[in-house]
Structure formats: C-alpha cells, structure tokens
C-alpha cells in the first residue's frame, strides 16, 4: 500500500509538535536562562538581564549547592556499588536455572513499582524506628546492644539510612537489565567450559562478565542518569534536611519551594535554578561519555 507524504505528516505531526514544545523548546530556553538573572518564574524575556557565567560562578561558591553536589556524588558512587553488587548477585542466581524463576524475578523487582513515598514511610517508621523498629528488634535479639541503640534517622546517620532504603527500591530494575543480558549468552559457551572443567566462578568471570560488557556499560549509564537526577527521596525520606539535599531538590526548593525553608534565605534568581538543571544535564553527559570511553577501549565481542 502506498502511503502519501501527507498521511505521514498527519500521523507524525502531533507527536513531533509535542516533542518540539515540551522537550526541545524548554531545553533551549533553560540553557539560555542559565546566562540571565531572572527575578521570578513568570518573568517575560524582556525582564531578564544578561550576566554571562555569573550563575555558574556563584553556584560553585555556594556551600549549600556544593554540599548537595557532594551528596549526589556519594549516592552515585556508594549507591552504585551497592546496587550493582546486589543486581549482579540476583541476576546471576536467576540465570543459573533456579526453580520458580519468574516468581523470584517479580519479587526482586517489586519494590521498584512502589512509590518512594510509601517506601520512605515503611523504612522510616518501621525499619529504622528506634523503639519498635525492625533493626532495633533484630540487633537486640542478637545481643548487639551497640547496634540496637544506633539512631538511624539522626542527623549523623540519615544520609546512609536513606541510601540503604533507596538502594532496596532500585536494585530490581538493574537486576532485570543484567539478567536479560546474561540470558542472551548462548548456552554452548557454558557447556564447552564445563567440558574443560571450569567451576561456577571461573565461568562467571571468564564467560559471563566479558560477554556482558555492553549490557553492563548501558546499565552504568542508566544508573548515572537515575542517580544524578536524585530528587524524590530528599523530599520524602530526608524531608528537606541538609544531610540528604541534592542539586535537583535544591533547585526545586529555591525555585518552587515554600518560603519558610532554610534555603530561602534570600530572593532567588530563577536563572540560577535553570543553571542547576544545566549542570545536572552536563554532568550526566560527561559521566556517560567517560563510561562509554572506558568500555570502548577493549575489543568488542560478537556472539
């Protein structure tokens, strides 16, 4: 059947127009805004005043922003290690031929389908609660009074507690990606290795890991995007405390947030908010490029 150019245009138009209005235009505009001082969010372009790289320079000398950037770096690195280790572990177990695979896979993925608001509640008010909480009860039972008395949600430990709860809610997704990659590796490889007398660990390090390179690279890039955009848990678990602040949530509080916040010490220039968004985007691009570069240096394996 011949499809005329006008039909193509008719079918594509709504989606393309939406893309231009909702993605392309705001991206360009946000980039532009980052070079201006803008008194409030509804200001027209004629009220903007050009200040070059001042927004960037000021953010880099703002201790609140720098602290929040540190937090996100720790989330990316420490959280990344925790999530990848567990995701690998579960993916490897699930692709090793366990009984009831689809049940277990759905179970590990389950926390990813629960909204962070609910996950924060059950972790904050049950697992980490210092009087009837899960950890306190377990450690008391084991006779580890030192650990049982730990105040998980005090200022000193809030960040780590949040990171643990957050990782629990994120492992499933990355497990699925790695698991799918592992199952695409042809069985012959493992059979051949078995004939040569390779044990399960040798098979994992000599066959699975090298052949998983591409999937692992993609998984790391996706983790980077998720981690650098970290936002919701700062609101639901950290409840605006400086310990759990991230650049994304910092931007939200400054531009949209309540006036009573400690972060609202002075009138905020909306252009600086856009600058935070640009910095987040650029960091994601740079880290992804580094990951791609590190993985590209080795030869690609076709199978």
């Amino acid at each position, binding site marked *: 059947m011949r499809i005329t150019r006008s039909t193509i245009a008719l079918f594509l138009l709504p989606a393309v127009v939406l893309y231009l209005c909702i993605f392309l235009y705001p991206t360009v505009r946000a980039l532009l805004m980052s070079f201006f001082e803008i008194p409030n969010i509804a200001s027209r372009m004629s009220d903007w005043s050009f200040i070059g790289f001042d927004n960037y320079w000021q953010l880099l000398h703002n201790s609140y922003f720098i602290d929040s950037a540190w937090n996100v770096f720790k989330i990316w690195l420490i959280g990344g290690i925790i999530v990848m280790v567990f995701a690998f572990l579960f993916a490897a177990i699930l692709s090793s031929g366990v009984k009831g695979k689809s049940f277990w896979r759905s179970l590990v993925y389950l926390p990813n389908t629960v909204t962070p608001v609910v996950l924060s509640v*059950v972790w904050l008010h049950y697992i980490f609660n210092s009087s009837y909480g899960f950890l306190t009860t377990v450690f008391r039972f084991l006779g580890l009074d030192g650990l049982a008395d730990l105040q998980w949600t005090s200022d000193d430990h809030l960040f780590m507690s949040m990171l643990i709860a957050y990782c629990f809610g994120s492992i499933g997704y990355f497990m699925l990606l790695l698991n799918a990659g592992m199952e695409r590796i042809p069985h012959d490889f493992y059979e051949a290795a078995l004939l040569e007398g390779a044990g399960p660990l040798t098979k994992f390090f000599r066959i699975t890991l090298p052949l998983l390179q591409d999937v692992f690279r993609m998984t790391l890039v996706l983790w980077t995007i998720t981690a650098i955009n970290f936002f919701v848990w700062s609101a639901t678990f950290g409840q605006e405390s400086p310990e759990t602040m991230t650049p994304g949530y910092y931007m939200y509080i400054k531009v949209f947030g309540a006036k009573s916040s400690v972060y609202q010490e002075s009138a905020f220039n909306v252009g600086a908010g856009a600058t935070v968004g640009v910095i987040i985007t650029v960091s994601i691009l740079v880290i992804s490029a580094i990951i791609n570069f590190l993985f590209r240096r080795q030869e690609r394996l076709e199978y």
Partner: protein
Amino acid sequence: MANKIRYVPLYLWLMFTIVLFGFAILASFSTTRGIFTNELFESGLHVSNYLVLFKDMNMGRYFLNSVIYTVSACVGVLVVAAPAAYILGRVRFRGQRLVETMFLSALSIPALLITIPLFTMFVQLKLTGSLLTLVLIYICTNVPFSVFLLSGFFSSIPKELEESAAIDGCGPVKSFVKVMLPVAQPGLITVSIFNFIAIWNDYIFALIFANNPKTHTLALALQSIVQGFTNSGNYAGIFAASMVVFVPTFVLYIFISGKIVSGITVGAVKG
C-alpha cells in the same frame, strides 16, 4: 550444596519483603499504643484508621484524582504516540532518522532541566490550577518513550495485513484504525502498563504542577498526611495511609508482573 546456597539470598529477600510490608499492613489495623508496646492487636482490629482517612482527610478525592490523571493520560499518550510509532515502524521516508533520533534524545533529557521553562509556559497559557494541567504534562512527558517502544511492535507486524486491507479498499487512516491497532493490541497494553506505573507513582511533576490542593495526586496527599500524622504522633494512621496507596498497585502488580518484566528487558536490551 552449592545449588542450595543460591536460594539463600532469594529467601532472605522474600522474608524481608514480607516483614516490611506485612508489618505495615498489620500496623495499619492497630493503634499507635499497640505499635509502640509491640502488642499490635491487644485491643482488637481497628478499621477506624482507614475511616478517618476517607472521612476527614479526603483520601477518596485524591484517589479519584490519581485515577483520572492516570487513565486519561494513558489514553492520551496512545492517541498521540500510536500513529507516529506506526509510521516510524513501517514506512521509510526522508528525514526518518532525524525524527527517530529526536524521540530517542528526549529519553535522556532530565525532567528537572525542563520543569522551569515548562512551568513558565503553563503559567503564560493560563493552564495551571486544574486537573487538565497534570494530564497534559503526563501525556507530553510519556510520548517519546511510548513512540520508541511501540514502533518496535508495529515493525514486527507482517506486511501482508496492510496489503489485504488496501485491496479491500481501506485508506491509510481506516486501515490503521481497523487493522493495525487491533493487531498491535499487546504492544499498546504493555506500553500503557509502563505509563500507568510511571504516572501513578510520579512525584516530581505532581509536586511542581499540582499547586492547587484540589488537584493533588494520591502520592502528594500521602506525603502531607504523613507529615501531619508524624507531628501528631498518629503512627497507625501513617501506616494506614501508606497502605491505601500501596495495596492497589500491589494487587495490579500480582496480575501483570510478567508483562512488566518482559517489557522492560525487550525495551532495554534493544536500546
């Protein structure tokens, strides 16, 4: 021996998940006193925690809001994305790569980058403060991913189907609606499940664009109810409120988890 060890992490995860959500469900039928004294049902089952939520905290209204947002946005996404995905999946035309790259690039634009200009745009168009605001936001932000996933489904449909439709005298629009859409139904359902979960659980866009309390989503309402109850020390109420949000998605997940799991791996490994 080594065979059995594999199951240890799985059973630990299972036990932890059951304890985590099991306690929350039990506690939601208890009292704050019962929770703190570790005797949850000392004074019997309490449904009152739930009654308070729906009577005094308007939870029913927010529940309805979330249903309206999710259902209308899921339908809206299909209306916009399906025709575009159909063209991208089946027709070769000039500029195709450009259009494909466009939708792919949208997947890597952080929501946080575009929120400020989007908010300004909505204020200037006087589109804030109603239910329509978030419906539009959810449709727009979920179109690129849906186009990307659906074009894969459309390209796997055999060509003969359209040809026989054309012989029967169907024009392109009619053959798309009458022939292609029904055949692509499994794809449409998979995409809608993804959009459903993303929209139902969304927090960022709701926080920024639903600035009128009447338009709050269930997740937003839950957060403010939890804050209020934490201050007044109503712990049983906190758990009950969380369960109102958790249980519907959990029940849905039990039925469709297979589709979600396979959908994610198809989309991800190809991309």
